[in-house]
């Protein structure tokens, strides 16, 4: 089983970043009922932020918080400019964010060109874990992503802000009656989701080739993750990411990445079809 451990680590790596992207989607959907199709472009902006900042000589580890801030700022602008006018029309938010994603992607193509570019990874030395040699940067990503996800969950489940946010997700009119400013929560949630996407883009940038299509490749699995996991609670994002991330990596190692994508997408459509409340809905039955 010498091939198993690197595979498991690859799966864990993909899953943990997928989780970061999915958390952003699930809290935005839970809070605002907005299916944010521009999420992949926030991811993209994070990755290009690293590219630009590295070009300016900023050390890599410093670019991560800056990419987080860039995503958050962009999210704030999008909410202020577009979403606040239409958040009471959920079907239209899908389309508006879709148009937004087209525009942002094309803006990036215009500024940086359509070709892919490389970002230098900060940790290039492989390390020995459990007797195998594995990329230290990937290990660092796993640690960072899990830590950030843990912080987000701690905020959601342990703080007063998180309590208010979860109350608004569970029953919005009731939360409003209790004096919770749900509009402000919307804004904070949306920019937090965007910031998480930007951060994920930044940590993934050294591993992927940075090109204008990379966001779409990440956001669709993330969407399927939250639907598979169940959009009812943020914790559903964990189950979904594990299923999608794990099965994608496993299938890609047996066949090709393209076949893996076809299989995993079909599989998730089947799961969504038979379990509309997702895997986390199973527990409540």
């Amino acid at each position: 089983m010498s091939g198993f451990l690197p595979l498991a680590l690859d799966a864990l790596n993909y899953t943990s970043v997928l989780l970061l992207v999915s958390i952003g989607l699930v809290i935005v959907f839970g809070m605002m009922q907005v299916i944010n199709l521009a999420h992949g472009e926030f991811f993209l902006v994070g990755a290009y932020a690293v590219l630009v900042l590295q070009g300016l000589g900023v050390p890599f580890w410093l670019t991560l918080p800056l990419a987080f801030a860039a995503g958050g700022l962009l999210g704030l602008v999008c909410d202020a400019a577009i979403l606040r006018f239409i958040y009471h029309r959920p079907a239209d938010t899908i389309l508006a964010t879709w148009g937004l994603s087209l525009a942002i992607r094309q803006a990036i193509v215009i500024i940086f060109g359509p070709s892919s570019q490389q970002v230098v990874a900060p940790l290039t030395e492989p390390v020995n874990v459990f007797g195998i040699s594995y990329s230290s940067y990937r290990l660092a990503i796993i640690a960072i992503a899990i830590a950030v996800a843990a912080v987000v969950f701690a905020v959601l489940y342990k703080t007063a802000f998180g309590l208010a946010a979860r109350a608004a997700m569970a029953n919005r009119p009731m939360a409003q009656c209790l004096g919770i400013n749900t509009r402000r929560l919307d804004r904070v949630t949306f920019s937090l989701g965007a910031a998480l996407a930007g951060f994920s883009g930044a940590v993934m940038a050294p591993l992927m080739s940075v090109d204008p299509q990379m966001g779409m490749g990440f956001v669709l699995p993330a969407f399927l993750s939250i639907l598979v996991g169940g959009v009812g609670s943020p914790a559903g994002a964990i189950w979904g990411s594990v299923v999608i991330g794990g099965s994608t990596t496993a299938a890609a190692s047996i066949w090709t990445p393209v076949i893996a994508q076809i299989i995993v997408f079909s599989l998730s459509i089947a799961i969504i079809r038979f379990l509309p409340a997702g895997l986390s809905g199973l527990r409540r039955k």
Partner: protein
Amino acid sequence: MSYRLLLTLAIWLVLGLMPLALGSWELAMFGQLLVYGIAAASLAFIWGEVGLVCFGQALFFGTGAYVMALTSKGMIPGIPDSAWLGLVLGIIGGALAAAILGGLLFFGVGLRSAYFGIVTIAAAVIGERLATNWRYIGGFNGLLDVPPLPLPGGTDSADPLMGYLLVLSFAFLSWLLLLALQRAPFGTVLRGIRCDERRMLSLGFSVPVYKLVALAVSGGVAGLAGALFAIQFSFVSPAVIGLALSTEILIWAAVGGKAVLMAAFIGALGVKWVEGALSESIGAYWLLVIGLAFVAVIVIFPHGLLGRLLDTGLPKRLRRP
């Protein structure tokens, strides 16, 4: 007759008189726009009536195009290589693809309409990947040299005038069919489903069956558009089945007006025409402009730019006396 209906009929009249004003090259270009118009109208039918936001319309369009190309090139074993048969099979193929998707999604536990959009995106990606990686149907390069449709009188659809008239008559027929369905009691049930699905269920309507039939009709019309696309361009490639085209169809329908067939139809013609006119001068900025324009239309004009202008209203039996 209301002025809106007059306007709609006037548009058809102008489209019918186009061959008198345009040269053969412009006519061929305009015929291609009509194909996109049919696709947009097919989307407007399920989007406007049933409220299903389908990101996979190109899946049906592309199925029609591929079936047409495969049949007329004689590549389906056991089926003779006839272009007209290909057109019929293309329509059936599009309808079947839609029926399969609808059958998977509408029955049983059922899917909330917001999830429907996401699932159709995934389905469109699957379709594109399959078409790109399936060697027999041409893979990445697609299928070349799709023969034109033979027409009575010894001509065929490669002739600009005949090609244009062919597409125009199919566009008119699909519009009539969809409009008739919209105005029939069937359409009333669909609007009921859009407004309150649960209430329609309680009233005894089999909501999944109605949705399935509506999606299959829409898929069939999109398949027809795809088949016409294949004979006009005489090639098909995975681009006709993927997400990019689905997105374009959505934008056309939204910009024109999703609830009105004619508005969506003209939306496609208009957007595609502007794209053609501007693509030389603004090039890469086009996608940026159309993306932002799309957002602006969604936020400011939920009925689309032409939705109110071309809305012929409810059938007489549903109007208040």
